């Protein structure tokens, strides 16, 4: 295995807190939520495993050093790993779900397209959306998820997919949101200088806002 410190992007002299912070930062980046439905989700999973192992190794090493060389047993920290998105939903499209799981997107889409339009239910729209999302057709995917939620508003699986795409559209995962001011638009300095300005204005008129200056 490669150098665990390198994997975490910290120097071997970093403090425990720095290492923890670096680990958290990376774990946030590779979090499965960022990749659910993406064709590169497995690679992100591997990255997650890598940093989990590196973090465990570093923690174990440091503990060993502190204990004067005695290698105590440390329970492996599983971090965010081990979250699986397996579904236990009863499904009329098990074959399609299996194909999607295997990454055979074109086959899955072909079966879906073969379903006559009168028997397309909420699950059909959800799966169609999933397939389109994997292909990068994000807008059509969004429309299909919306349709699925409309037809079956109480299904958690469809709702979760819809929420994710909605958050992504609103710039939660990168991008620009016009309704959220950028941080730093009003800093501490701005507050102070405005107060001093106001004080000067008052003094001109014979009043005083801040008595001490």
């Amino acid at each position, binding site marked *: 295995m490669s150098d665990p410190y390198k994997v975490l992007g910290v120097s071997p002299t970093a403090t425990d807190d720095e290492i923890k912070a670096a680990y958290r930062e990376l774990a946030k*980046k*590779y979090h499965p939520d*960022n*990749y659910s439905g*993406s*064709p*590169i989700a497995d*690679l*992100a999973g*591997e*990255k997650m495993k890598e940093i989990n192992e590196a973090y465990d190794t570093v923690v174990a090493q440091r503990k060993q050093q502190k204990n004067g060389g005695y290698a105590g047993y440390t329970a492996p920290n599983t971090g965010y790993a081990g979250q699986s998105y397996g579904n236990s939903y009863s499904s009329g499209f098990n074959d399609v779900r299996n194909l999607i799981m295997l990454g055979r997107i074109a086959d899955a889409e072909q079966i879906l397209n073969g379903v006559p339009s009168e028997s397309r239910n909420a699950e059909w729209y959800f799966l169609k959306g999933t397939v*389109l999302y994997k292909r*990068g*057709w*994000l*807008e*059509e995917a*969004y429309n299909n998820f919306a349709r699925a939620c409309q037809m079956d508003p109480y299904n958690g699986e469809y709702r979760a997919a819809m929420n994710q*795409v909605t958050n*992504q*559209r*609103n*710039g*939660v*995962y*990168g*991008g*620009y*949101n*016009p309704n959220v001011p950028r941080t730093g638009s009003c800093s501490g300095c701005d507050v102070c200088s405005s107060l001093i300005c106001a004080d000067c204005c008052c003094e001109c008129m014979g009043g005083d806002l801040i008595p001490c200056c």
Partner: protein
Amino acid sequence: MFGYVRPQKSELLVREYEQYKGVYCSLCRQLGKSYGMVSRLTLSYDCTFYALMLLAFRPECPGFQSGRCVVNPLKKCTFCSSGEPEFVSASALSVIMTYYKIRDDIADSRFWGKLRAYALLLLAARAHRKAAADFPRLDAIISASMEEQKAAEQAPDPCLDSCAEPTAKMLQQVFEASAGEDGEPDSPKIRILRQFGYFLGRWVYIIDAADDMEKDLKTASFNPFIIQCGLNEASSPEELEKAKSYANEVLNLTLSQLTAALNILDLDHFGEIIQNVVLKGLPEIQKELLFKKEKVHVRSL
């Protein structure tokens, strides 16, 4: 459709900005060397970004040295002291893309525009011939995507996704090809690069379409947003604003995928600059083009 992929300068370290400029100037110099003085005019931020991505995977970091700018001899420039093969392919991409863009303009414009485009085409044709001979794969990818674009726009019921697909696929293949043919086709790096290229291309197509909305309304040209949002010449400013805010959501969704791909991509050099482009530069362009009241030209860096 050029110049959208760039860093946000205010968020770069001075050192990073110097490096970015170094890559930019080296690409310009390579264009002159490979394809003649005129081809320097095709220099763009997009191809600089492509060069950066190529350099990011080199085993050793390209060093920097200072020299003189050829276009403005009074100005001092930084240049990369190595990395020639990367700049050669980035400059070929620049020449080939510009050539097809001009050909596209000929088909789209009226009499005077056509005349202008033909004149430019004459200038670009020789450089393109040379670039296409050196990089036949790149040329094939881009010319095929132009054909697909035409077909997608003439399809009976064009949706945003199908219109964005040719550009997305084009960059997907360009980035896939950049990893070299020797690598196995399904290595993690190539899979991530494919995903990265697809969504970068998709973002570029969509921002370009969103930016051209008003212009295309006036000239009655094809634009997926005009169809999607049902705009016409009598549309009120509010309707346009709504369409732009819709475009922003589409772009955010695309960026979320691009960011996810970038996060698990192992870059050996220029990682901070590339992250700046994707996480800050592209959102900045969205803000500038879609939410400024008066039409602004994005200033050069």
